[in-house]
């Protein structure tokens, strides 16, 4: 699969969220490229811990996929930040998430 540009990833994510959020979108993380400064999620656990955890629960760790990114649509609400996050994996939207 050809590598998607940031613009293409953003447009894909924008199509997955309500219209009023679309202009707020920005790429938080590209998993196939260096993270945008200040926007990436923290590294959750070291490789050794992840390997041990996967073994513990019987999971085969998934491999990195091309054209994978998190696109966020920040929304400050009456209850605080409730950003919508769109997960794009292998060029497709896999999740549109909000915090409850």
């Amino acid at each position: 699969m050809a590598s998607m540009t940031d613009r293409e990833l953003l447009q894909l994510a924008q199509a997955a969220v309500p219209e009023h959020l679309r202009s707020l979108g920005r790429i938080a993380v590209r998993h196939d490229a260096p993270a945008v400064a200040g926007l990436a999620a923290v590294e959750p656990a070291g490789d050794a811990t992840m390997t041990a955890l996967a073994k513990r629960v019987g999971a085969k760790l998934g491999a990195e996929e091309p054209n994978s990114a998190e696109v966020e649509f920040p929304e400050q609400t009456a209850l605080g930040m409730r950003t919508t996050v769109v997960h794009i994996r292998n060029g497709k939207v896999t999740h549109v998430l909000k915090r409850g």
Partner: protein
Amino acid sequence: MTRKQPPARRAASRAHSRTARSSRRAHAGQSAAHQKHQGKEAMTAYFVCATSAVRAKYGSAAAGIVADVAALGSVIDVSGQSPEQIQAKIAALPAGAACLVGGYDLIPPFIRPNPTHGSQDDDAEIPTDAPYGATPGHPEEEYAPERAISRIPDSATADAAEFSALLGYQRAAPTQTTPPGSYEEAADEFSGALQYVHAAIPGAHGPSLLSPPAKSTDPGITKNLSGHGRIHILLHGANYDPDWAALWGHGPGANAPFVKALTAQIFDRCDFEGTIVTFSSCYAAMLDAAPAKHGARNSGNQVAVACLAHGAKVTFGATRSNWISTTSPYDGFGPRLAAEVWRQLARRQPAAEALRLAKAAYLKVALSQSPGDRPYALKTVLQAQCYGHPMAKL
């Protein structure tokens, strides 16, 4: 602090009388075989209590509280010990679930960095009891614990009558029948995830509401909530005073208002005796006050504690914000774990073990997906807590 004392006192009084009733019911009519079975089960749970902290908090009422804790089962005294020391002590116990007794002022949680902290998630840290179920030196077990862990929290403000009544409910919990029926409610924008979890709840055929239009002032709300044995809530939660006392509905539209849908004060008027409650809501199991500098959590403003104070056998929830999928198939993260808990409960697993197994089952699937999903999956399991008797069953 906005809590009004009179309703709390009334609630404690009602809870006391209900406790006496349920305790009599729990102990009346049991066959010798049943009592023997109950005794065998009680041996598989340890109640971890800092008795000196209980005495400091409850003063002259502490002896009664300690006696109530001892009535639950084997007490492991961890007075004066740090979380790491308590973790090591629990790890050295024979097989069995461990139940932490009291809120964070009696036994502190572990504090871990939030794996999804960043611009999209302002929760910097996660308070979690999960490491108490891990073997020291094995950080992977903090996500998929070796030992089942629960906590029976009290209010941060010392209320001996209320905590004693709550412990009375908990004493009856392992043998108490779960009432039939269900109640489910979600923010309108989370309707898909509500249905996803619904499919995993055995015997769920009660009210299923979305907010909006449902709101806290709707007539009959306490009747709808009371007496149903299976409750799942997927409303929004808040992490600051006074909004943390409520659970909020919200639609997907632009500038949609947050609607107060349920509150701890409503729970104060309900009867949850024998009920099992799962919250997929943000902050529903949050016992601390951070990031706020003021405020204390109690049954008047903390929804999980409110449910336990009114008879719930067990509640499940997250100490921080839950990630919710808003698109089909709705099977991600917080709701996925809640559904796994119900599946384990349906297999007659005791409550704390149900959460332990649910975390492992969830991670087996989640870790096999994209590496980018891992921080979200790790946050989901790290913050998920079981409050109530570890041996309570559906």
